């Protein structure tokens, strides 16, 4: 299929910045607005934009379907695993304080890991939903 040249070039130009913005929203969520949920949606939006303007094959190359589908349960496992790690270290489920020698630092670390879990699940779910719709429409 032939895709519009302007759209293709434009998309490729802004693609890295969208990804960078997603990562910024993810890791700056501690200090400003944002977090795993929003960052996941932005990252998924990047893949969808690529698929819409440059074709599904290119999107499959940077975000293979097998990887994206595995991300869906992986994020939940990361989140729940953080809770179990809290139990194994002698505290309650999802208590982050034992992750570091300093309780506040442990909490900071725990929030980071948990947000990463949310990011993985949200990005994976939205991208693979899009893939599923496109596959069905073929």
């Amino acid at each position, binding site marked *: 299929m032939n895709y519009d040249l302007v759209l293709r070039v434009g998309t490729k130009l802004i693609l890295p910045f969208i990804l960078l913005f997603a990562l910024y929203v993810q890791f700056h969520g501690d200090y400003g607005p944002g977090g795993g949920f*929003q960052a996941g*949606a932005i990252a998924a939006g990047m893949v969808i934009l690529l698929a819409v303007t440059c074709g599904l094959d290119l999107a499959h190359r940077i975000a293979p379907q097998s990887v994206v589908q595995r991300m869906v349960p992986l994020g939940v496992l990361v989140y729940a695993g953080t809770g179990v790690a809290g139990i194994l270290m002698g505290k309650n489920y999802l208590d982050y304080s034992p992750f570091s020698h300093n309780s506040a630092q442990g909490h*900071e670390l725990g929030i980071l890991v*948990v947000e990463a879990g949310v990011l993985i699940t949200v990005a994976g779910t939205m991208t693979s939903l899009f893939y599923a719709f496109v596959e069905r429409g073929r």
Partner: protein
Amino acid sequence: MLLTLLAVVTIAIVRQRSLFGVVILASIYSFLIASVLIVLDAVDVAMTEASVGAGVSTVLMLATLHLVKTTEMKQVRARLLPLFVSLGTGAVLVWGMQVLPPFGTPDAAIHKHVAPRYLAESIKETNVPNVVTSVLADYRSFDTLGETTVIFTAGIGVMLLLRKARRRGRRDDAET
């Protein structure tokens, strides 16, 4: 001003027969709601609304339209009962709003329970200046785990539905 625009877009959605137009108008509606949320200082929620409501869900709706017909069917039932139900629900909601404290009251019940502790202790206990994040991922971390599981379950469900139907379609093709 924003609320007027919201009302205009809602009426446009109701009057629009082409589903494609409805999806685009719903996306505009999401952006307007995001602006309202920014005015209300709920930047995190506004960001979610803009990225999920206006961005990803619009794309998914368009992808759905790719699979089904794009014009709304003519109405077959009478319109009186739905009108009555929605007016009744609206009346009950307005009636319920009468007992809520006025908007922005600092001594409302919800601001007196645990919120002051979160605001005062968040940086000391978690090193995270954005209280929204620390409440979401730490104080209320079980809720967020539940939300993530909901996303997981919903995603898996939709994927299974789409995939199963596809396989059955292929078998029918082979038989005929």
